[in-house]
Protein backbone atom coordinates (compact mmCIF):
# COMPACT_ATOMS: atom_id res chain seq x y z
CA UNK A 1 0.00 0.00 0.00
CA UNK A 2 1.07 3.61 -0.39
CA UNK A 3 0.33 4.32 3.23
CA UNK A 4 3.27 5.64 5.25
CA UNK A 5 2.16 3.66 8.26
CA UNK A 6 2.61 -0.10 8.62
CA UNK A 7 -0.52 -2.17 8.09
CA UNK A 8 -2.80 -3.08 11.01
CA UNK A 9 -2.59 0.41 12.46
CA UNK A 10 -4.88 3.39 12.15
CA UNK A 11 -3.90 6.91 13.12
CA UNK A 12 -6.75 9.26 13.86
CA UNK A 13 -6.64 13.01 14.40
CA UNK A 14 -9.52 14.19 16.55
CA UNK A 15 -10.86 17.39 18.10
CA UNK A 16 -10.38 17.93 21.83
CA UNK A 17 -14.07 17.53 22.75
CA UNK A 18 -14.06 13.94 21.46
CA UNK A 19 -11.37 12.78 23.80
CA UNK A 20 -13.48 10.65 26.11
CA UNK A 21 -15.95 9.27 23.65
CA UNK A 22 -13.42 8.31 20.99
CA UNK A 23 -11.22 6.59 23.56
CA UNK A 24 -14.15 4.33 24.40
CA UNK A 25 -15.03 3.87 20.74
CA UNK A 26 -11.55 2.75 19.84
CA UNK A 27 -11.47 0.36 22.79
CA UNK A 28 -14.65 -1.25 21.55
CA UNK A 29 -13.28 -1.37 18.01
CA UNK A 30 -10.07 -3.05 19.09
CA UNK A 31 -12.04 -5.55 21.10
CA UNK A 32 -13.93 -6.69 18.02
CA UNK A 33 -10.92 -6.30 15.69
CA UNK A 34 -7.95 -7.62 17.64
CA UNK A 35 -4.67 -7.01 15.85
CA UNK A 36 -5.58 -3.55 14.63
CA UNK A 37 -4.04 -0.81 16.66
CA UNK A 38 -5.74 2.57 16.85
CA UNK A 39 -3.73 5.67 17.79
CA UNK A 40 -5.72 8.82 18.41
CA UNK A 41 -4.07 12.21 18.47
CA UNK A 42 -6.16 14.97 20.03
CA UNK A 43 -5.72 18.66 19.40
CA UNK A 44 -7.59 21.74 18.34
CA UNK A 45 -9.31 21.23 15.00
CA UNK A 46 -7.38 24.13 13.47
CA UNK A 47 -4.02 22.77 14.49
CA UNK A 48 -4.82 19.30 13.19
CA UNK A 49 -6.12 20.69 9.89
CA UNK A 50 -2.90 22.61 9.58
CA UNK A 51 -0.85 19.45 10.11
CA UNK A 52 -2.85 17.50 7.58
CA UNK A 53 -2.26 20.19 4.99
CA UNK A 54 1.43 19.67 5.73
CA UNK A 55 1.20 15.95 5.09
CA UNK A 56 0.86 14.58 8.58
CA UNK A 57 0.48 10.79 8.43
CA UNK A 58 -3.14 10.62 9.62
CA UNK A 59 -5.85 8.33 8.21
CA UNK A 60 -9.01 9.95 9.49
CA UNK A 61 -9.77 13.42 10.74
CA UNK A 62 -12.62 14.03 13.22
CA UNK A 63 -13.17 17.78 13.37
CA UNK A 64 -15.25 19.74 15.88
CA UNK A 65 -17.00 21.49 13.04
CA UNK A 66 -17.68 20.95 9.37
CA UNK A 67 -15.67 23.76 7.83
CA UNK A 68 -12.22 22.18 8.17
CA UNK A 69 -13.26 18.88 6.52
CA UNK A 70 -14.89 20.90 3.74
CA UNK A 71 -11.69 22.86 3.22
CA UNK A 72 -9.67 19.65 2.97
CA UNK A 73 -12.11 18.35 0.41
CA UNK A 74 -11.86 21.49 -1.67
CA UNK A 75 -8.06 21.27 -1.54
CA UNK A 76 -8.29 17.72 -2.87
CA UNK A 77 -6.74 16.31 0.28
CA UNK A 78 -9.72 14.24 1.35
CA UNK A 79 -10.33 10.65 0.43
CA UNK A 80 -14.04 10.86 1.15
CA UNK A 81 -16.76 13.49 1.35
CA UNK A 82 -17.09 15.17 4.76
CA UNK A 83 -19.58 13.26 6.82
CA UNK A 84 -21.53 14.56 9.80
CA UNK A 85 -21.12 12.22 12.78
CA UNK A 86 -22.46 14.17 15.76
CA UNK A 87 -23.86 17.44 17.00
CA UNK A 88 -22.37 18.94 20.13
CA UNK A 89 -23.88 20.99 22.92
CA UNK A 90 -22.71 24.02 24.80
CA UNK A 91 -23.20 23.97 28.59
CA UNK A 92 -22.66 26.15 31.64
CA UNK A 93 -20.52 24.33 34.18
CA UNK A 94 -19.54 25.13 37.76
CA UNK A 95 -18.28 23.21 40.74
CA UNK A 96 -19.34 25.79 43.35
CA UNK A 97 -22.40 27.60 42.02
CA UNK A 98 -25.88 26.37 41.34
CA UNK A 99 -26.33 26.57 37.58
CA UNK A 100 -29.79 25.02 37.44
CA UNK A 101 -31.42 28.43 36.84
CA UNK A 102 -29.53 28.74 33.57
CA UNK A 103 -28.16 31.88 32.02
CA UNK A 104 -29.40 34.07 34.93
CA UNK A 105 -26.42 32.90 36.97
CA UNK A 106 -24.16 35.15 34.94
CA UNK A 107 -25.54 38.14 36.84
CA UNK A 108 -24.17 36.75 40.10
CA UNK A 109 -21.62 39.27 41.47
CA UNK A 110 -19.64 36.47 43.17
CA UNK A 111 -18.39 35.38 39.78
CA UNK A 112 -14.97 36.82 39.15
CA UNK A 113 -13.87 34.81 36.11
CA UNK A 114 -15.76 33.03 33.35
CA UNK A 115 -13.83 30.69 31.10
CA UNK A 116 -14.53 30.00 27.45
CA UNK A 117 -12.49 28.51 24.61
CA UNK A 118 -10.63 30.88 22.31
CA UNK A 119 -13.40 32.12 19.98
CA UNK A 120 -11.03 32.85 17.14
CA UNK A 121 -9.85 29.25 16.98
CA UNK A 122 -12.19 26.90 18.77
CA UNK A 123 -15.76 26.19 17.54
CA UNK A 124 -17.00 25.98 21.16
CA UNK A 125 -15.51 29.37 21.96
CA UNK A 126 -17.16 30.93 18.97
CA UNK A 127 -20.56 29.51 20.02
CA UNK A 128 -20.02 30.73 23.59
CA UNK A 129 -19.57 34.31 22.45
CA UNK A 130 -22.60 34.05 20.17
CA UNK A 131 -24.64 32.81 23.09
CA UNK A 132 -23.53 35.58 25.44
CA UNK A 133 -24.35 38.15 22.77
CA UNK A 134 -27.72 36.55 22.17
CA UNK A 135 -28.64 37.14 25.81
CA UNK A 136 -27.07 40.64 25.70
CA UNK A 137 -24.70 39.69 28.47
CA UNK A 138 -21.45 39.89 26.57
CA UNK A 139 -20.63 43.57 27.14
CA UNK A 140 -21.57 43.33 30.78
CA UNK A 141 -19.29 40.42 31.62
CA UNK A 142 -16.62 40.95 28.99
CA UNK A 143 -13.98 41.83 31.60
CA UNK A 144 -14.55 38.58 33.46
CA UNK A 145 -13.84 36.36 30.46
CA UNK A 146 -10.71 34.27 30.34
CA UNK A 147 -9.88 32.24 27.26
CA UNK A 148 -8.47 28.75 27.08
CA UNK A 149 -6.56 27.69 24.00
CA UNK A 150 -9.18 25.05 23.29
CA UNK A 151 -12.33 23.87 25.01
CA UNK A 152 -10.40 21.36 27.06
CA UNK A 153 -8.35 24.13 28.63
CA UNK A 154 -11.44 26.20 29.32
CA UNK A 155 -12.70 23.19 31.24
CA UNK A 156 -9.42 23.01 33.11
CA UNK A 157 -9.86 26.60 34.31
CA UNK A 158 -13.20 25.87 35.97
CA UNK A 159 -12.26 22.43 37.16
CA UNK A 160 -9.28 23.81 39.08
CA UNK A 161 -11.44 26.56 40.57
CA UNK A 162 -9.58 29.45 39.03
CA UNK A 163 -12.74 30.43 37.20
CA UNK A 164 -16.13 30.10 38.90
CA UNK A 165 -18.04 29.36 35.73
CA UNK A 166 -17.27 27.95 32.31
CA UNK A 167 -19.00 27.65 28.96
CA UNK A 168 -17.78 24.28 27.71
CA UNK A 169 -18.73 21.19 25.73
CA UNK A 170 -21.35 18.83 27.14
CA UNK A 171 -19.12 15.89 26.24
CA UNK A 172 -16.50 17.17 28.67
CA UNK A 173 -19.05 17.90 31.42
CA UNK A 174 -20.17 14.25 31.18
CA UNK A 175 -16.64 12.88 31.36
CA UNK A 176 -15.75 10.89 34.47
CA UNK A 177 -13.23 13.58 35.44
CA UNK A 178 -15.85 16.33 35.57
CA UNK A 179 -19.23 14.76 36.13
CA UNK A 180 -18.61 14.01 39.78
CA UNK A 181 -17.19 17.42 40.57
CA UNK A 182 -19.83 19.87 39.41
CA UNK A 183 -23.17 20.60 37.74
CA UNK A 184 -23.99 21.58 34.18
CA UNK A 185 -26.81 23.32 32.39
CA UNK A 186 -27.42 22.82 28.68
CA UNK A 187 -27.78 26.15 26.91
CA UNK A 188 -30.61 26.66 24.51
CA UNK A 189 -29.69 25.63 20.98
CA UNK A 190 -31.26 28.78 19.50
CA UNK A 191 -28.76 31.04 21.26
CA UNK A 192 -25.94 29.95 18.98
CA UNK A 193 -25.31 28.29 15.65
CA UNK A 194 -25.28 24.54 15.50
CA UNK A 195 -22.15 22.59 16.51
CA UNK A 196 -22.07 20.27 13.54
CA UNK A 197 -19.12 17.91 13.73
CA UNK A 198 -17.84 16.07 10.66
CA UNK A 199 -15.08 13.66 9.70
CA UNK A 200 -13.20 12.87 6.51
CA UNK A 201 -10.88 10.11 5.44
CA UNK A 202 -7.54 11.53 4.40
CA UNK A 203 -6.49 11.06 0.80
CA UNK A 204 -4.89 7.66 -0.03
CA UNK A 205 -6.35 6.08 3.11
CA UNK A 206 -9.72 5.39 1.52
CA UNK A 207 -8.32 2.15 0.08
CA UNK A 208 -7.12 0.88 3.45
CA UNK A 209 -9.57 -1.74 4.58
CA UNK A 210 -8.88 -1.19 8.28
CA UNK A 211 -9.77 2.46 7.87
CA UNK A 212 -12.96 1.58 6.05
CA UNK A 213 -13.69 -0.93 8.78
CA UNK A 214 -13.39 1.77 11.42
CA UNK A 215 -15.58 4.20 9.53
CA UNK A 216 -18.20 1.51 9.22
CA UNK A 217 -17.91 0.84 12.93
CA UNK A 218 -18.67 4.53 13.62
CA UNK A 219 -22.13 4.04 12.10
CA UNK A 220 -22.89 1.03 14.33
CA UNK A 221 -25.47 1.04 17.08
CA UNK A 222 -22.85 0.43 19.75
CA UNK A 223 -21.11 3.64 18.84
CA UNK A 224 -24.34 5.63 18.65
CA UNK A 225 -24.98 4.64 22.25
CA UNK A 226 -21.53 5.77 23.25
CA UNK A 227 -21.96 9.15 21.54
CA UNK A 228 -25.31 9.50 23.25
CA UNK A 229 -23.70 8.75 26.59
CA UNK A 230 -21.46 11.79 26.13
CA UNK A 231 -24.36 14.04 25.24
CA UNK A 232 -23.91 14.18 21.50
CA UNK A 233 -26.96 14.20 19.33
CA UNK A 234 -26.68 12.10 16.23
CA UNK A 235 -27.27 13.65 12.80
CA UNK A 236 -30.20 11.43 11.76
CA UNK A 237 -31.91 11.66 15.09
CA UNK A 238 -31.61 15.44 14.89
CA UNK A 239 -33.37 15.63 11.56
Amino acid sequence: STSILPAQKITIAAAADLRFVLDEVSNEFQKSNPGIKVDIIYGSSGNLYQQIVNQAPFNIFFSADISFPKKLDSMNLAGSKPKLYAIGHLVLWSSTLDVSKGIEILNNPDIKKISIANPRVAPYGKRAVECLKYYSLYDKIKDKIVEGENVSQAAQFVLTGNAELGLIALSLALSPEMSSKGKYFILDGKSHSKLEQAYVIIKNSETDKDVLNFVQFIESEKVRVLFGKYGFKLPVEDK
Partner: protein
Amino acid sequence: MDEAFLQTFWISIKLASLTTLILFCIGIPLAYFLTYSTFRSKVVLQALVSMPLVLPPSVLGFYLLLAFSPNYLFGGWLNNWFGIRLAFSFAGILIGSVIFNLPFMVNSIQTGFSNLPASLKDASYTLGKSRTTTISKVLLPNIKPALLTGICLTFAHSIGEFGVILMIGGNIPGKTRVASLAVYDEVQALNFGMAGKYAMFLFLFSFIILLFIYSVNREYQKWKRF
Protein backbone atom coordinates in the same frame (compact mmCIF):
# COMPACT_ATOMS: atom_id res chain seq x y z
CA MET B 1 0.17 48.47 13.64
CA ASP B 2 -3.04 48.86 15.52
CA GLU B 3 -3.45 49.77 19.16
CA ALA B 4 -4.19 46.21 20.33
CA PHE B 5 -0.95 45.08 18.82
CA LEU B 6 1.08 47.76 20.56
CA GLN B 7 -0.64 46.99 23.85
CA THR B 8 0.18 43.29 23.52
CA PHE B 9 3.70 44.13 22.69
CA TRP B 10 4.04 46.49 25.62
CA ILE B 11 2.92 43.78 28.04
CA SER B 12 5.56 41.45 26.64
CA ILE B 13 8.26 44.02 27.22
CA LYS B 14 7.03 44.85 30.69
CA LEU B 15 6.92 41.18 31.59
CA ALA B 16 10.39 40.47 30.21
CA SER B 17 11.95 43.51 31.87
CA LEU B 18 10.44 42.81 35.27
CA THR B 19 11.35 39.14 35.05
CA THR B 20 14.93 40.02 34.20
CA LEU B 21 15.16 42.59 36.98
CA ILE B 22 13.74 40.29 39.63
CA LEU B 23 15.89 37.38 38.53
CA PHE B 24 18.98 39.54 38.46
CA CYS B 25 18.41 40.39 42.11
CA ILE B 26 17.61 36.80 43.12
CA GLY B 27 20.15 35.24 40.78
CA ILE B 28 23.30 36.89 42.11
CA PRO B 29 23.03 35.75 45.74
CA LEU B 30 21.77 32.34 44.67
CA ALA B 31 24.57 31.82 42.16
CA TYR B 32 27.08 33.06 44.73
CA PHE B 33 25.81 30.60 47.27
CA LEU B 34 25.85 27.75 44.76
CA THR B 35 29.40 28.53 43.68
CA TYR B 36 31.12 29.25 46.96
CA SER B 37 29.19 27.46 49.67
CA THR B 38 30.80 24.35 51.03
CA PHE B 39 27.44 23.08 52.21
CA ARG B 40 27.42 19.44 51.13
CA SER B 41 23.90 19.08 49.83
CA LYS B 42 23.95 22.22 47.76
CA VAL B 43 23.86 19.99 44.67
CA VAL B 44 20.26 19.27 45.56
CA LEU B 45 19.47 22.96 45.46
CA GLN B 46 21.47 23.17 42.26
CA ALA B 47 19.37 20.47 40.64
CA LEU B 48 16.16 22.09 41.88
CA VAL B 49 17.15 25.41 40.33
CA SER B 50 17.54 23.65 36.99
CA MET B 51 14.21 21.84 37.20
CA PRO B 52 12.09 24.44 35.38
CA LEU B 53 14.21 23.65 32.35
CA VAL B 54 13.13 20.06 32.31
CA LEU B 55 9.45 20.29 33.05
CA PRO B 56 7.42 21.09 29.96
CA PRO B 57 6.20 24.69 30.32
CA SER B 58 2.60 23.63 30.05
CA VAL B 59 2.98 21.23 32.92
CA LEU B 60 4.68 23.81 35.07
CA GLY B 61 1.89 26.19 34.15
CA PHE B 62 -0.68 23.63 35.11
CA TYR B 63 0.82 23.15 38.54
CA LEU B 64 0.85 26.89 39.01
CA LEU B 65 -2.79 26.94 38.03
CA LEU B 66 -3.49 24.46 40.81
CA ALA B 67 -1.39 26.45 43.28
CA PHE B 68 -3.16 29.69 42.42
CA SER B 69 -6.63 28.20 42.69
CA PRO B 70 -8.73 29.41 45.65
CA ASN B 71 -9.79 25.80 46.14
CA TYR B 72 -6.32 24.77 47.17
CA LEU B 73 -4.01 25.62 50.02
CA PHE B 74 -1.82 28.46 48.83
CA GLY B 75 -4.33 30.15 46.53
CA GLY B 76 -7.04 29.79 49.16
CA TRP B 77 -4.89 31.46 51.76
CA LEU B 78 -4.07 34.32 49.39
CA ASN B 79 -7.72 34.68 48.48
CA ASN B 80 -9.10 34.57 52.01
CA TRP B 81 -6.54 36.77 53.71
CA PHE B 82 -5.62 39.27 51.04
CA GLY B 83 -8.33 38.86 48.44
CA ILE B 84 -5.63 38.21 45.88
CA ARG B 85 -6.19 35.97 42.88
CA LEU B 86 -3.06 35.25 40.93
CA ALA B 87 -4.49 33.27 38.04
CA PHE B 88 -5.27 35.39 34.99
CA SER B 89 -3.43 38.42 36.41
CA PHE B 90 -0.21 40.12 35.41
CA ALA B 91 1.29 39.30 38.82
CA GLY B 92 0.50 35.65 38.17
CA ILE B 93 2.22 35.44 34.81
CA LEU B 94 5.14 37.36 36.27
CA ILE B 95 5.53 34.72 38.98
CA GLY B 96 5.34 32.00 36.36
CA SER B 97 7.90 33.74 34.20
CA VAL B 98 10.29 34.27 37.11
CA ILE B 99 10.16 30.60 38.10
CA PHE B 100 10.47 29.44 34.56
CA ASN B 101 13.51 31.58 33.79
CA LEU B 102 15.34 30.99 37.06
CA PRO B 103 17.87 28.51 35.62
CA PHE B 104 18.85 30.77 32.74
CA MET B 105 19.94 33.56 35.04
CA VAL B 106 21.41 31.46 37.83
CA ASN B 107 23.36 29.03 35.67
CA SER B 108 24.90 31.83 33.64
CA ILE B 109 26.04 33.84 36.64
CA GLN B 110 27.32 30.71 38.30
CA THR B 111 29.48 29.85 35.32
CA GLY B 112 30.97 33.33 35.61
CA PHE B 113 31.74 32.99 39.29
CA SER B 114 33.31 29.58 38.95
CA ASN B 115 35.67 30.81 36.23
CA LEU B 116 37.09 33.56 38.45
CA PRO B 117 40.45 32.95 40.11
CA ALA B 118 40.18 32.61 43.88
CA SER B 119 42.87 35.23 44.28
CA LEU B 120 40.52 38.13 43.54
CA LYS B 121 38.35 37.34 46.52
CA ASP B 122 41.39 36.78 48.70
CA ALA B 123 42.92 40.08 47.70
CA SER B 124 39.76 42.02 48.41
CA TYR B 125 39.35 40.35 51.80
CA THR B 126 42.88 41.22 52.83
CA LEU B 127 42.06 44.83 52.00
CA GLY B 128 39.44 44.63 54.73
CA LYS B 129 36.47 44.64 52.38
CA SER B 130 33.28 42.91 53.41
CA ARG B 131 31.79 40.12 51.37
CA THR B 132 29.13 42.41 49.94
CA THR B 133 31.67 45.00 48.83
CA THR B 134 33.84 42.29 47.35
CA ILE B 135 30.95 40.89 45.38
CA SER B 136 29.71 44.20 44.06
CA LYS B 137 33.03 45.89 43.37
CA VAL B 138 35.32 43.02 42.45
CA LEU B 139 33.54 39.80 41.55
CA LEU B 140 30.56 41.07 39.58
CA PRO B 141 32.50 43.57 37.43
CA ASN B 142 34.83 40.75 36.45
CA ILE B 143 32.06 38.46 35.23
CA LYS B 144 30.36 40.97 32.97
CA PRO B 145 30.16 38.58 29.99
CA ALA B 146 28.40 36.04 32.18
CA LEU B 147 26.01 38.63 33.60
CA LEU B 148 25.25 39.81 30.12
CA THR B 149 24.61 36.28 28.93
CA GLY B 150 22.27 35.76 31.87
CA ILE B 151 20.37 38.96 31.19
CA CYS B 152 20.08 38.28 27.48
CA LEU B 153 18.99 34.68 27.89
CA THR B 154 16.41 35.65 30.49
CA PHE B 155 15.03 38.64 28.67
CA ALA B 156 14.87 36.90 25.34
CA HIS B 157 13.44 33.75 26.77
CA SER B 158 10.69 35.57 28.63
CA ILE B 159 9.75 37.46 25.49
CA GLY B 160 9.49 34.15 23.63
CA GLU B 161 7.95 32.10 26.39
CA PHE B 162 4.35 31.14 25.94
CA GLY B 163 3.71 27.73 27.42
CA VAL B 164 3.40 28.83 31.03
CA ILE B 165 1.50 31.98 30.17
CA LEU B 166 -0.85 30.02 27.98
CA MET B 167 -1.74 27.92 31.00
CA ILE B 168 -2.21 30.63 33.62
CA GLY B 169 -2.80 33.82 31.67
CA GLY B 170 -6.26 33.37 30.19
CA ASN B 171 -5.27 35.46 27.16
CA ILE B 172 -6.80 38.69 28.49
CA PRO B 173 -6.05 41.67 26.21
CA GLY B 174 -4.29 44.48 28.08
CA LYS B 175 -3.45 42.26 31.01
CA THR B 176 -2.00 38.89 30.18
CA ARG B 177 -2.02 38.66 26.43
CA VAL B 178 1.63 38.82 25.42
CA ALA B 179 3.03 38.98 21.92
CA SER B 180 4.10 35.35 21.79
CA LEU B 181 0.53 34.27 22.59
CA ALA B 182 -0.87 36.60 19.98
CA VAL B 183 1.33 35.06 17.31
CA TYR B 184 0.36 31.58 18.36
CA ASP B 185 -3.25 32.64 18.25
CA GLU B 186 -2.97 33.91 14.73
CA VAL B 187 -1.20 30.76 13.61
CA GLN B 188 -3.96 28.69 15.17
CA ALA B 189 -6.56 30.83 13.47
CA LEU B 190 -4.79 30.03 10.19
CA ASN B 191 -4.29 33.74 9.83
CA PHE B 192 -0.78 33.23 8.49
CA GLY B 193 -0.41 36.69 7.03
CA MET B 194 -1.08 38.39 10.33
CA ALA B 195 0.96 35.80 12.22
CA GLY B 196 3.85 36.47 9.88
CA LYS B 197 3.57 40.19 10.46
CA TYR B 198 3.53 39.81 14.25
CA ALA B 199 6.37 37.32 14.18
CA MET B 200 8.45 39.53 11.93
CA PHE B 201 7.98 42.49 14.24
CA LEU B 202 8.90 40.38 17.25
CA PHE B 203 11.87 39.04 15.37
CA LEU B 204 13.15 42.47 14.35
CA PHE B 205 12.60 43.97 17.75
CA SER B 206 14.48 41.20 19.53
CA PHE B 207 17.14 41.14 16.90
CA ILE B 208 17.81 44.84 17.41
CA ILE B 209 17.94 44.50 21.17
CA LEU B 210 20.33 41.58 20.97
CA LEU B 211 22.43 43.35 18.37
CA PHE B 212 22.68 46.37 20.63
CA ILE B 213 23.62 44.35 23.71
CA TYR B 214 26.23 42.32 21.88
CA SER B 215 27.77 45.40 20.28
CA VAL B 216 28.13 47.03 23.68
CA ASN B 217 29.66 43.84 25.01
CA ARG B 218 32.08 43.69 22.11
CA GLU B 219 33.34 47.17 22.91
CA TYR B 220 33.74 46.15 26.49
CA GLN B 221 35.65 43.03 25.55
CA LYS B 222 37.99 44.91 23.25
CA TRP B 223 38.72 47.41 25.95
CA LYS B 224 39.45 44.70 28.50
CA ARG B 225 41.84 42.73 26.37
CA PHE B 226 45.05 43.56 24.64
